[in-house]
């Protein structure tokens, strides 16, 4: 009896699979999808080493969580530079400070030729970075930690000063004649995020409030913004701190029937099209691709020619205010995951 039943189940599964496969083959989409992506990739530059220096190994250790779009772009930049510079590129990440420090230790033990580290939690990274410097491994810090980079013995820092970026947002809001803004922080406990909102508060002539949301839970983000907009109709601009959250804010604004303009930090394909469509006001980009690309390239320059860029000051990759006018050109770049 049981035998017969399993046979029936198996047949049913087979039938479902067959139907799905047929549907997939028959119902092709003539727009978008994997095929369009492949075509775009083919059109992009083909990767081949442009130099004949020895094949050095550079490792990058970031404070990113799992599956973060921003860090994907940084990695893309780093990998592209690694291909050009004939580098074996390794990447690891952990959002727990202790784990991140351990990863750096692992790469030091491995004996890499160069290290790229983010200092989102500078005090926790101090010992590990200093250990690397002592071991004669050149270190470049990226994205966060511009104040500590030099003290820890890193060659240079590449990134955006979060306070400066926040100030640029405050000025832009003023220029647009806004009076009451909301700053949406999606990661409680992130110092950089606090700096962004504080910077915006400093230069913004109107009133700016902070709203904390749980970034790992999109529906919750949307509901929180919605509730805030409903409770305070005077809010005329919402600033999100990450590209994926801009969309949630737009949805929330629609649901709450608010007239507020949504602006965001960072860029992705969706933000670029929303900018050119006019559903978003402006975006503040820190060019993550550049952070990955330059880090690898500067390490290569140091190994090859002992060159150091920046003259002891951080090399800034932002803030760059992107409005409707620039968005059209950047859409393609954002879609291939480099902006």
């Amino acid at each position, binding site marked *: 009896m049981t035998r017969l039943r399993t046979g029936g189940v198996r047949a049913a599964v087979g039938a479902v699979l067959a139907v799905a496969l047929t549907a997939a083959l028959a119902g092709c989409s003539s727009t978008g999808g994997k095929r369009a992506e492949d075509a775009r990739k083919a059109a992009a530059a083909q990767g081949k080493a442009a130099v004949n220096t020895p094949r050095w190994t550079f490792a990058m250790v970031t404070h990113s969580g799992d599956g973060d779009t921003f860090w994907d772009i940084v990695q893309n930049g780093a990998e592209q530079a690694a291909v050009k510079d004939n580098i074996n590129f*390794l990447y690891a*990440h952990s959002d*727990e400070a202790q784990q991140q420090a*351990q990863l750096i*230790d692992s790469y030091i*033990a491995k004996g890499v030729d160069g290290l790229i580290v983010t200092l989102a939690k*500078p005090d926790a990274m101090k010992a590990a970075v200093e250990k690397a410097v002592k071991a004669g491994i050149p270190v470049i810090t990226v994205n966060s930690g511009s104040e500590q980079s030099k003290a820890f013995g890193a060659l240079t820092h590449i990134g955006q000063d979060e306070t400066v970026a926040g100030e640029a947002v405050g000025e832009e809001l003023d220029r647009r004649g806004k009076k009451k803004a909301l700053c949406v922080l999606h990661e409680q*406990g992130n*110092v950089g995020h*606090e700096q962004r909102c504080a910077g915006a508060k400093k230069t913004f002539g109107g009133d700016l409030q902070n709203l904390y949301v749980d970034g790992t839970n999109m529906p919750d983000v949307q509901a929180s913004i919605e509730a805030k907009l409903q409770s305070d109709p005077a809010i005329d601009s919402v600033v999100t701190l990450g590209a994926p959250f801009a969309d949630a804010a737009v949805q929330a604004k629609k649901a709450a029937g608010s007239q507020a303009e949504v602006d965001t930090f960072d860029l992705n394909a969706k933000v670029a099209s929303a900018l050119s469509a006019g559903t978003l006001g402006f975006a503040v980009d820190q060019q993550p691709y550049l952070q990955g690309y330059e880090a690898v390239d500067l390490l290569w320059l140091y190994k090859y020619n002992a060159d150091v860029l920046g003259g002891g000051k951080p090399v800034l990759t932002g803030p760059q205010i992107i409005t409707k006018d620039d968005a059209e050109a950047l859409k393609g770049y954002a879609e291939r995951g480099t902006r």
Partner: protein
Amino acid sequence: MSATAPSDLDHVDERLLRTTRLRKLLARPELGSVVGAAAVFVFFSIVADSFLRASSLGTVFYAASTIGIMAVPVALLMIGGEFDLSAGVMVTTSALISSMFSYQMTANVWVGVGVSLLVTLAIGVFNGFMLTRTKLPSFIITLGTFLMLTGLNLGFTKLISGTVSTKSIADMEGFPSAKKLFASQLTIGGVDLKVTILWWIGLVAVATWILLRTRFGNWIFAVGGNADAARAVGVPVARTKIGLYMGVAFCAWISGQHLLFSFDVVQSGEGVGNELIYIIAAVIGGCLITGGYGSAIGSAVGAFIFGMTSKGIVYAEWNPDWFKFFLGAMLLLATLLNAWIRRRVEATK
């Protein structure tokens, strides 16, 4: 065994004796995990050439110890038939209390460390007390504590320090001596070994002694196996469970102090999710989710597997995206192996 001729009875006896010894070994809860650990070790030694370097192993042991220190009390608690989902954030809470108390009161760092111990133990008592009083499952009680602590960590830190991380206490009195105890580094034969490895070994030894040699250890097995039967024969069930939760709190305090003194500044949002890793280490080490079975040594082996996997993937130059997949597969395999061995042992009894 069919009937044996009386003439080779001695011979049979000897053979029986040997099987019993083998069976004893097979009945150890951590056997499956030891086999697993050996397999993982050999595997990474082959695929990652830098894995076997002394300095690499130092890092692996350190990674294992940071998990292992917490896996020991969590394993004891699981043998006692309960969970603690607040264990991960409790570590952060403990570090935050030491740091902020010392800083705000401008007190000697050791004062903060002491206050932190008392408060953390109180959280453990709260967990145990709520559990024994309300008769709700520990899953629910500690889930509540977990969420409350997560909020308190962020809320209080922001309220007191004005930012989301604590202020540096490295220049305060008592910091160097506390750092020696909780976060120093010993160099043995050119290899840097963190002091947490010693803490870890010490805790495993103490926990094993408690489990196998003391009355309290028997109580743990009894309340985890069958609480009602244990109560009927006079085991103080409530006190045992509260004691186990205090054990988790004590180790969370050790981990928290390590976090504080090795990094000097504590991020208030960390620790979330680690409670599951402690449970995974205990389960890989042979603890039963249902209680009444397991060992402290097993939890150490589980933590060691975790350390080897998390760092081995780095040494093997693999994409870290796969790490969680390996961990999950390892968990399933280890648990299946444990169950299979246990069944075999019971079948031959």
